[in-house]
């Protein structure tokens, strides 16, 4: 510690940079999810354990399909940004970078896969 410069001690401990924008985006997606979460439970609750035909019919209807699509996009975007904050709190350097990239891969991968499946079911 004795030989460390003031700058070295401060590096990685958070200049805000795009942090305010990140916080604002989390706020927006939070409000969206306050509305989407109950709708999502209503759209999905009756479906697990149903027959394949029932599921195909269900997701061909507008309400379940649209709510699911919105939940996939907004929910997983909110996850990606939220988990980035957690990663930044506990890790640094290469580990931090790799984990943020991995979180983005998982989030957008799940989003794209879910949307693909949804389009096939709905159309």
């Amino acid at each position, binding site marked *: 510690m004795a030989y460390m410069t003031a700058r070295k001690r401060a590096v990685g401990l958070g200049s805000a940079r795009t942090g305010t924008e990140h916080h604002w985006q989390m706020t927006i997606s939070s409000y969206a999810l306050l509305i989407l979460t109950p709708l999502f439970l209503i759209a999905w609750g009756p479906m*697990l354990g149903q027959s394949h035909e029932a599921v195909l019919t269900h997701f061909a209807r507008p309400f379940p399909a649209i709510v699911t699509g919105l939940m996939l996009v907004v929910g997983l975007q909110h996850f990606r940004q*939220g988990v980035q904050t957690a990663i930044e709190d506990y890790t640094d350097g290469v580990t931090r970078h790799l984990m943020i990239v991995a979180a983005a891969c998982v989030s957008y991968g799940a989003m794209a896969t879910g949307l693909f499946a949804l389009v096939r*079911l709905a159309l």
Partner: protein
Amino acid sequence: MADVNRGNRPLSPHLQVYRPQITSVSSILTRISGISLIVGALGLVWWLLAAATSPEAFAVADGVWTSPFGWLVQLGSVWALWYHFLAGARHLYWDTGRGLEIETAERLGWACVIGSVALTVLTFAIFIAV
């Protein structure tokens, strides 16, 4: 600035020396519930893809979701969803500058814990009844 010795100053007490309090526990739970929701999300995406692929693939995915293990994931995910929902709403409320008094913050913490359990029970009660 570089010659100022900041290395030997006393450190402020951190998490591990504090008794757990509802404010800190409810905050930590927010993060845990949010991160763990990825398990349910990936499971649902798998179920959705299986439904779009073939009846056989659907049977496998739906079998896992309705197995005892699947029910445990469902229960945990619905609780995590409601907890994160309430804790998120609490953050939005705090962001307006309200509710930050210690007593209010503690009451909001209990509201998240008790409310999430109540909403989870309600959710399953409704869907099992319907």
